[in-house]
């Protein structure tokens, strides 16, 4: 599978494989297309199994002619069978793909690893991004590991923990007085003025390809088979649609058999342009001003939203939205039943899974995979005051007295 060209997702116009992201004819987004002629599924499978313990085992399906050198390889995160979660929800078979187990604790390492490798191949010496958290951490870390200069643009009022977890890697951290949309607009403009590789702007077609590895890993970890249904969060819609693309590619190549799973998307009520478009039957997403605790999903004008709606519809799935209290409950539910502590985006996904289960949308015979994209320690505010701490003197009597007062026994 050799990468062949960039192709417009709207009008199919073709462009060479360089740092560009938008169709000059219609402004549609560009996507990498491959030449699959003569691909032998048995040979592809053998190469994967003999490959590295991360995303580069799937290098044949990524936009490179040669496997890049990557000093901070993400991927091959655990796929855990979550029987206690399934039981709590009255479901048969639920799996959790825990992508918090990446180098900077979110799925962003997959896309950034691909974008940074591409930046090096194209001869860039500086990488950059607009971000409010996970992406900032990841770009700073991968640039540091690869020896590239980096600029990370964030809203200047970002929480301290996020600034620290980015600044520690020695990046040029730039606080912009404004909100995320202001930062994003500035970066789109800067992209035209500076010779920098913005991972999620001019390298976006390559960056987005990294998310396909989530589909490949899921299929491989399930013994080269597909789930019946997946539940994944939607921000820009890129992750969601690329999981679909990954499964489709493997079905087309004969690496797996069966049907494309049912796709369920998860959004927060405070930023739900894709869920709203799905519910209303629209083909476009009306932009929203985000107001939700799920900040890593708060994209009011999602670039791949229309494609996400299309994927949910064509597979018989849906895009649902959940409230902030439901998100907090989702974080708790996952933690209590699997031992995995996720950030608010994971809370959105688990709350959506619970909603689908309650609505009776999921059959007991279905194998469901839930994508957990980030780490709970990054959004501690979401769980503040959600538990009780017993406080005692360092004596057994004090312990017993405290629990007796609380009405429980040790």
């Amino acid at each position, binding site marked *: 599978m050799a990468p062949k060209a960039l192709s417009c997702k709207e009008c199919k116009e073709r462009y060479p494989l360089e740092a560009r992201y938008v169709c000059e004819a219609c402004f549609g987004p560009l996507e990498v297309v491959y030449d699959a002629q003569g691909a032998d599924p048995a040979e592809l499978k053998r190469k994967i199994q003999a490959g590295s313990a991360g995303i580069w085992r799937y290098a044949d399906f990524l936009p490179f002619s040669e496997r890049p050198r990557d000093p901070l390889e993400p991927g091959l995160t655990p796929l855990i069978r979550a029987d206690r979660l399934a039981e709590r929800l009255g479901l048969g078979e639920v799996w959790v793909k825990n992508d918090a187990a990446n180098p900077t604790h979110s799925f962003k390492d997959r896309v950034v690893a691909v974008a940074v490798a591409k930046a090096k191949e194209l001869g860039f010496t500086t990488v950059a991004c607009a971000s409010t958290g996970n*992406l900032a951490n990841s770009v700073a870390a991968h640039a540091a590991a690869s020896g590239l200069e980096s600029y990370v643009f964030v809203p200047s009022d970002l929480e301290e923990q996020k600034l620290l977890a980015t600044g520690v890697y020695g990046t040029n951290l730039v606080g912009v007085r404004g909100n995320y949309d202001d930062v994003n607009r500035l970066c789109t403009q800067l992209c035209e003025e500076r010779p920098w590789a913005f991972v999620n702007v001019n390298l976006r077609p390559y960056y987005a390809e990294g998310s396909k590895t989530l589909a490949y890993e899921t299929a491989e970890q399930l013994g080269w088979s597909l789930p019946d249904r997946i539940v994944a969060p939607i921000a820009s819609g890129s992750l969601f649609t690329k999981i679909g693309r990954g499964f489709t590619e493997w079905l087309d190549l004969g690496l797996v058999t069966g049907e494309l799973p049912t796709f369920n998307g998860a959004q927060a009520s405070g930023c739900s342009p894709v869920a709203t478009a799905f519910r209303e039957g629209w083909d476009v997403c009306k932009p929203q001003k985000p107001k939700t605790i799920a900040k890593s999903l708060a994209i009011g004008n999602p670039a791949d939203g229309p494609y996400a709606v299309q994927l949910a519809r064509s597979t018989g799935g849906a895009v649902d939205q959940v409230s902030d209290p439901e998100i907090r409950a989702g974080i708790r539910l996952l933690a209590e039943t699997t031992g995995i502590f996720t950030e608010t985006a994971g809370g959105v996904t688990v709350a959506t899974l619970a909603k689908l289960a309650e609505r009776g949308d999921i059959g007991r015979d279905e194998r469901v995979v839930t994508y957990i994209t980030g780490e709970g320690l990054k959004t501690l505010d979401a769980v503040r005051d959600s538990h009780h701490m017993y406080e005692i003197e360092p004596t057994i009597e004090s312990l017993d007295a405290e629990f007796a007062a609380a009405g429980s026994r040790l």
Partner: protein
Amino acid sequence: MAVTVKIPSQLRPATDGQGEVEVEGGTVGEALDAVFDQHDGLRERITEDGTLRRFVNVYVSGEDIRFQEGLDTELTDGDEVTILPAVAGGR
């Protein structure tokens, strides 16, 4: 109203390389029409059936016109109208 319309690099082949165009217009729609009149081929790339294409964003003094009155958003003298491709990053 005299306003400045900022053209992204992807569209500059259609404006003879110009990054800014000075036009008159009382609304965003009128200003864009004035730009389209000066430069052939821009209209089809930015609009479709009289509305903005779904992957085009237009800002007036930094604010997305979809949060205002769309193409009917009013302009005041000296306003800056910026056309940009819609890219929503991951965060």
